């Protein structure tokens, strides 16, 4: 850090922000600005690099901008499954913003919150900074933020946006008893930035941010919205990203027996002809998580289509159904062979 400051001084102290790697490791800053990750107009500091995922989590149509900062001289290590192994000092950043009109997602963006996952010596820490009075301030207990936009149908849409509290961060980012990143897996980064050009995995390796990338055999999670990809691969990618972090043997929903990670192979654990365990009214009167060939008889679809607490899945992180996501899962279940044996 001192060396970086010195370098800046020698360069004539450009007005660029400098990332406070020491502060990131040491304490939960009350204001996002304290960490120096962005300048006043929201541009990332040097070294704060954008990345995109092939299939992202649905968050009420929020536009999400992801960045990673690695301490100078360090790099992530390749892992074929799960998130890449990021060194201590890493910060993963996700900024949430809503466009004034959902049909023009790049225009008139109103920032709402910025979430940080900081890799400290004792493990990962999740912090959320909420826009209040012109600055992003730390909110541990979460917050409801009313957001008014024009919806995809051209009508005004009121979104009851919920910033998660610190415990909710962990509920999703849970691996056993620790916190872990979810999004930046090799499979989900094995696409070009913004879906174009060379794979980000290859770019990261080439720019010294990644170690150990094999020459072949790197998995690729399908883009959920790419009609050129096979339907099942898109559906499994969607479920992996939107459900698989909790519905995992080490996740918050481990007790459900429903496991939706990208590598799950047992039909019963994927929900095929699986009866509910503790769904209560979440079952919607349906008998199986997935009834092959019949989305209307599948609990999975019922819970994705609901916005009622106690029924809806995920349990938080959205306040409205994701129409396109539901359509994808419906199409996938419809295409399943109803006569296939349970397993």
């Amino acid at each position, binding site marked *: 850090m001192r060396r970086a400051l010195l370098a800046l001084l020698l360069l004539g102290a450009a007005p660029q922000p400098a990332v406070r790697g020491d502060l990131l490791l040491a304490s939960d800053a009350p204001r996002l600005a304290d960490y120096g990750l962005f300048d006043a107009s929201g541009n990332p500091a040097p070294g704060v690099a954008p990345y995109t995922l092939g299939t992202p989590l649905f968050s009420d149509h929020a536009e999400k901008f992801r960045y990673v900062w690695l301490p100078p001289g360090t790099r992530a290590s390749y892992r074929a499954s799960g998130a890449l192994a990021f060194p201590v000092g890493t910060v993963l950043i996700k900024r949430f913003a809503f466009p004034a009109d959902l049909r023009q997602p790049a225009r008139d963006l109103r920032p709402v919150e910025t979430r940080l996952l900081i890799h400290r010596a004792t493990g990962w820490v999740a912090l959320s900074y909420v826009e209040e009075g012109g600055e992003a301030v730390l909110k*541990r*207990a*979460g*917050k*409801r933020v009313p957001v008014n936009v024009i919806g995809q149908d051209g009508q005004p849409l009121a979104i*009851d946006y*919920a910033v998660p*509290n*610190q*415990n*909710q961060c*962990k*509920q999703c980012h849970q691996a056993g*008893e620790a916190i872990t990143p979810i999004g930046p897996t090799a499979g989900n980064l094995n696409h070009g930035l913004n879906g174009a050009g060379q794979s980000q995995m290859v770019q990261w390796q080439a720019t010294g941010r990644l170690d150990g990338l094999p020459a072949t055999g790197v998995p690729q999670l399908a883009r959920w919205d790419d009609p050129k990809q096979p339907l099942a691969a898109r559906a499994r990618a969607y479920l992996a990203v939107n459900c698989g972090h909790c519905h995992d*043997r080490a996740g*918050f929903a*481990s*007790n459900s*027996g429903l496991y939706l990670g990208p590598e799950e192979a047992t039909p*019963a*654990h994927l929900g095929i*002809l*699986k*009866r*509910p*365990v*503790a*769904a*209560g*009214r*979440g*079952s*919607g*009167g*349906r*008998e*199986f998580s997935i009834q092959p060939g019949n989305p209307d008889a599948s*609990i999975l679809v019922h819970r994705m289509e609901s916005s*009622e*607490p*106690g029924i809806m899945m995920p*349990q*938080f992180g959205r*306040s409205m159904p994701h129409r396109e996501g539901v359509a994808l899962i419906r199409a996938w279940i419809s295409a399943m062979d109803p006569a296939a*044996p*349970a*397993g």
Partner: protein
Amino acid sequence: MRKATGALLAAYIFAGTPGGSAAARMIHVGPGDNAQERLQTALIEAAPGDIIHIAAGRYALADGLSLDVDGVTIRGDGPERTILDFTAQKGEGEGLLITSDNVVVRDLGVENPAGNGIKSKGSDGIALVNIRVEWTGGPKSTNGAYGLYPVSSKNVLIDRSFVRGASDAGIYVGQSQNIIVRRSRAEMNVAGIEIENSHDAAVVGNIATNNAGGILVFDLPDLPQQGGRNVKVSGNQVVGNNHVNFAAPGNIVAGVPSGTGIMVMANRNVSVWGNQVIGNNGNAVMVVAYTQAFTDKAYNPLPQAVDVWGNDFRGNGSAPAFPGGKQIAAAVGGTLPPVMWDGITRYTVPGTAEARMASGGVRSDVPGITLNLGTHGTPATAARPSPLPVTDFGKLVPGADIGVTLPAELEARSR
């Protein structure tokens, strides 16, 4: 979860001793504006050993609350005085979620949670004491599933609590071990008290009344923890559990016939002793194999070594609601005897050879019947009822030992 150290355990004990260490803080939260954020902030900022005192009053909460700090006590001023009101809940599947160890929640009420009332997930040491969870609009299929819901937990105590209106089980302990449910009351739920996929559990001195089923001991397939066993159901009053079953179809409890007192499914080494089982119109005690088809090769659907003895059975069995029940009752003189076993002793998992019961099914010291269904999957309408032999349990008089001991520190904070 962060593990409590020996030093912290010592601090808890000092905190309860006059003139002891001041290490444990008392954090007070009162009703009023912004209660959601103040409560959740207190729960996040608590340190091990702290007591969070939620003062008397009604707290209208739009989102679920959660605790992830070990060794915390959450304490209200009484189940009718400190009321966490989730009537307008907009998010989360629980009213209060606990994901840490050695936690006591006591002396408060939870009303109308959208999903479950209080859930613990993965807790080692969780005590829910003198809690009221109630859906105040009465029993409805749109009520939340479970009132008190420890799951994947260890060293579980539910004591002196009350649950009314749950659309699944009032008190439900799932995939857990070392469990005591005692001195609690469950009424007008689909199931009163349910122990599922758990081992080493004691359900003692409770009242289960006016549920569709009083006390259930179940085991289900395709779950991370299965093989339910070593469950004692003792000294409970299981009375008039004739409520209509209002569970959403699809759930396993939706298949529990209204009028069931105590039901044991696919568990082994279960003792039903010294209960008063009165006025349940269906089976006083029903012992059955898992009722559905399954494909899990690691799962055993059969109940084994279920002992029913020393109970006070009165006025049960007049109107069994399960398919074929009326005909079976008629065939044995109009009223079912206190104990009924489905008599299933064989099952086949697809792709494997037929398996048979390794040890005996049911022993009872009162009259009972077996339906002699034989093979798993045979419906009750194919029953060929015959009497069960009456077993003399002789000198097997149980003592005060309920077979489960909880950590002394947890018990001390729960007194």
